């Protein structure tokens, strides 16, 4: 019966072993680190991909679909990688090589190593269901943790958005709202509760966010957004705005500021059973003024307080906005830029219309005529 030493010696006879210089000369080679996660996290070769030995057979095709390409596998000392190279041979890889001396010799010889940024064990557990999705994974989760999203309004749309963004691990959430929590809010504004009746909505939302995920840094702005304060708030550096405002002057103000500050806006609006969702991304698609150059007359623009809203509707629309926000931050999927999603909860009908940038738009067009803040209340009352 063969011992480990016998098997190792036999395997090394059957595969190609290369040293660092020979490996470096292999054009277009894929470098595969077959060590365990904790070893990888302490440092690895630059440009290497991590495929633990136990997953080699099942995952190698994802990183090296072409069986004729050069592959350099390495471990700590060159033994596990010898067995890995043998396995690759058996899988039909024609040019699999094991790095002699592995990571240990590489490092000892003073060659470059990379120490990856990684999630702590606590975060790895909390976000494990994200980490399992190939489109997000550790790199995507780190992007979410590094991101800063500003919520306009902590009401119907802002409630579900703030909670799901917090749960997703967005690093910093800013919330702008001047209101206090009242009983009529609780039919839909799930970030608030009986315990916070009478409290400022920004404080109530912060409490709910941190109860769910204390990792999130919450920045509160207990003020009504105006042309006087918006530049100061946006200068705090936001990657994205989630707009859940409840009036037209604020919608147009947010639009103009977002174009001038070059910040994408995930837009959502609701009334009774119906909602609209889109993404306005400066330079890549239309802005709110391209879509709606003018607001409707006041009698055709009732607020939820006047016309009502189905309690779950902001939940649906606010989570659709959150979905857009997470995709934009993680840089995955197809966004709603250039598409306006219309939903009717009563008929449970989702439809979509195409929206285009207007070259004559007064704010984002080729020859803008509005280049500083206007009187938005007056503009919307005309």
């Amino acid at each position, binding site marked *: 019966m063969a011992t480990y030493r016998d098997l190792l010696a036999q395997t090394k006879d059957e595969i190609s072993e290369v040293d660092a210089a020979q490996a470096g000369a292999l054009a277009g080679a894929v470098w595969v680190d077959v060590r365990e996660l904790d070893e990888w996290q302490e440092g690895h070769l630059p440009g290497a991909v991590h495929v633990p030995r136990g997953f080699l057979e099942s995952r190698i095709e994802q990183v090296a679909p072409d069986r004729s390409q050069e592959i350099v596998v390495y471990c700590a000392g060159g033994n596990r990688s010898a067995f890995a190279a043998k396995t690759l041979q058996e899988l039909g890889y024609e040019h699999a090589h094991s790095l002699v001396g592995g990571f240990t010799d590489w490092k000892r010889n003073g060659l470059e190593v990379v120490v990856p940024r990684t999630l702590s064990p606590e975060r790895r557990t909390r976000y494990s269901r994200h980490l399992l999705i190939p489109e997000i994974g550790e790199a995507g989760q780190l992007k979410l943790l590094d991101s800063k999203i500003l919520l306009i*309004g902590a009401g119907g749309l802002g409630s579900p958005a703030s909670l799901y963004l917090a749960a997703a691990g967005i690093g910093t959430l800013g919330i702008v709202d001047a209101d206090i929590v009242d009983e009529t809010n609780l039919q839909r504004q799930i970030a608030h509760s009986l315990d916070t009746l009478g409290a400022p909505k920004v404080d109530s939302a912060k409490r709910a966010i941190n109860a769910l995920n204390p990792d999130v840094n919450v920045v509160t702005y207990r003020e009504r957004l105006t042309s006087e304060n918006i530049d100061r708030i946006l200068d705090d550096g936001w990657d994205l705005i989630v707009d859940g405002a409840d009036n037209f002057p604020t919608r147009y103000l947010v639009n103009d500021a977002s174009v001038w500050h070059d910040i994408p806006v995930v837009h959502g609006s*609701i009334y009774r*059973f119906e909602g609209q969702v889109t993404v306005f991304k400066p330079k890549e698609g239309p802005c709110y003024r391209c879509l709606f150059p003018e607001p409707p007359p006041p009698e055709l623009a009732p*607020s939820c307080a006047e016309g009502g809203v189905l309690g779950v509707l902001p939940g649906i629309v606010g989570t659709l906005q959150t979905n857009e926000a997470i995709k934009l931050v993680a840089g995955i999927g197809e966004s709603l830029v250039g598409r306006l999603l219309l939903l009717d909860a009563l008929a449970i009908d989702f439809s979509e219309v*195409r929206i285009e940038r207007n070259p004559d738009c007064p704010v984002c067009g080729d020859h803008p005529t509005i280049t500083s803040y206007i009187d938005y209340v007056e503009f919307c009352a005309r």
Partner: protein
Amino acid sequence: MSVVRVPPVLRAEAGGAREVEAQGANVRELLEDLSIRHPALGSRVYGEGELQSFVNVYVDGEDVRTRNGLDTEVRESSTVILLPAMAGGC
């Protein structure tokens, strides 16, 4: 006849209907026909040969402003959406 989707804020003008029917080979003809069938609704969105500036009109998902405006073709099978902005986030 084409289907015309009525936004919630204008349903009172259409007897509460979510959708109505109207006929026309292009948007202008369709809105003129709509104004005869549903005068209250028609007058809110169209008057003196012009579309009200706060209402967007989509024919089969395309904004008529990016097509041929009121001359944009409408088919029997078309769905026409009348869409003013909604502000609510409340």
